[in-house]
């Protein structure tokens, strides 16, 4: 099992494409997205709606170096639109293809 950083991001559905474009730019391939999330924070309550202003939950597993880059690109997005990003350690059960 390989030690990795587990990055967990909550942003609005409408910002997802923008975030993925940024991940492409810094060469992050893998991520998982759970749509239809709600929540509450400094900017009040969010829930899934017709306007796509609900939240999505993105999980990224990557090495420390990539994690640095991800944090770099996510920070301005969080500052601009709100949301959260949590980083923790995990072990990746490697699957060689």
């Amino acid at each position, binding site marked *: 099992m390989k030690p990795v950083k587990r990055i967990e991001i909550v942003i*609005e559905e*409408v*910002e997802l*494409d*923008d975030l993925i*474009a*940024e991940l492409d730019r810094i060469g992050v391939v893998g991520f998982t997205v759970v749509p*239809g999330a709600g929540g509450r924070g400094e*900017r*009040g309550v969010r829930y*899934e*709606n*017709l*306007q*796509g*202003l609900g939240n999505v939950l993105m999980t990224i597993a990557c090495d420390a170096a990539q994690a640095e880059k991800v944090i770099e690109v996510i920070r*301005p997005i969080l500052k*601009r*639109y709100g949301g959260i990003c949590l980083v923790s350690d995990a072990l990746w059960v490697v699957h060689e293809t």
Partner: protein
Amino acid sequence: MSSLSNMLNPAVLFFGLGFLAQVVRSDLKFPNDLAKALSIYLLVGIGLHGGMELVKVDPASAVGAVIAALGLGFGLPIVAYHLLIWVVRIDRLNAAAIAAHYGSVSAGTFITAIAFLDAAKVTHESYPVIMLAIMESPAIIIGLVLANLSRQGAGNGRERRVSRELVHDAFTNGSVMLLLGSMLIGAIAQPTGLQKILPFYDSMFMGVLCLFLLDMGMEAARRIGDFKAVGAKLIGFGIAMPLIGAAIGLAIGHYLLGFGPGGALLVAVLAASASYIAVPPAMRLAIPEASPALFLTLSLGITFPFNVVVGIPLYFTAAQWLAR
């Protein structure tokens, strides 16, 4: 047709029911995908009908409506923007975001107006539906421009990419695609085929509208919590702006386009209504400094209910008065 009898229109009553359910904190839940499905259905239905009507009229005669739509789409946000800055006195970025909503249109309000005319057995011209499709987009562009002006400059690379994306979305967003697309299909599809699909889009239409408004009523009531944050002056704007828009719309519909009361009402509703589907996400991306609590509450919580319950019959009375 009196304002009371409008309130007895089933569509309006279901809006009220949804509103009430939320106010009494009922656990009634309306699946989000159902709301999406209903709005897809309504846009396709209105588009198909529009298209079938439009092939009957000579294209040239539509030019006026197209120009009027563009005029309203670009003009109304600028009116709203200056009202918000000089009269309501809010910051430029929130003003730009809100203004964009009022430049665009609410298909839900438009369709409710058609239900109103149907119930009143009043005919209407077929052009307004093209105007509906056209008016979705320009306001978003204006909103972007106003925002960039007040920020002086479109910001860094990422922000510029986002802006480009938004201009693209303004012309390709789902509502526009469905409206224009099904208008085209209604216009060119073979009649035998159309006859087969019409029952679906005809007979169910008003019933589906009721379910959609049930959900809209719940959505509107959800915004009440933000009324205090919005403040009396902005709430006033949420009622004054549709009146101004309607006045402009009536003038254009009656004098410029020479529509009868039915058509004039629809133009008034286009001008009076504020977008609550296409524009909010665009403005959220374009102007994150603007508070969704403000623009969503104004468009969903105040202007939409006002138009559906009071506005439509009011504008229609005016339209009839003009038509005398």
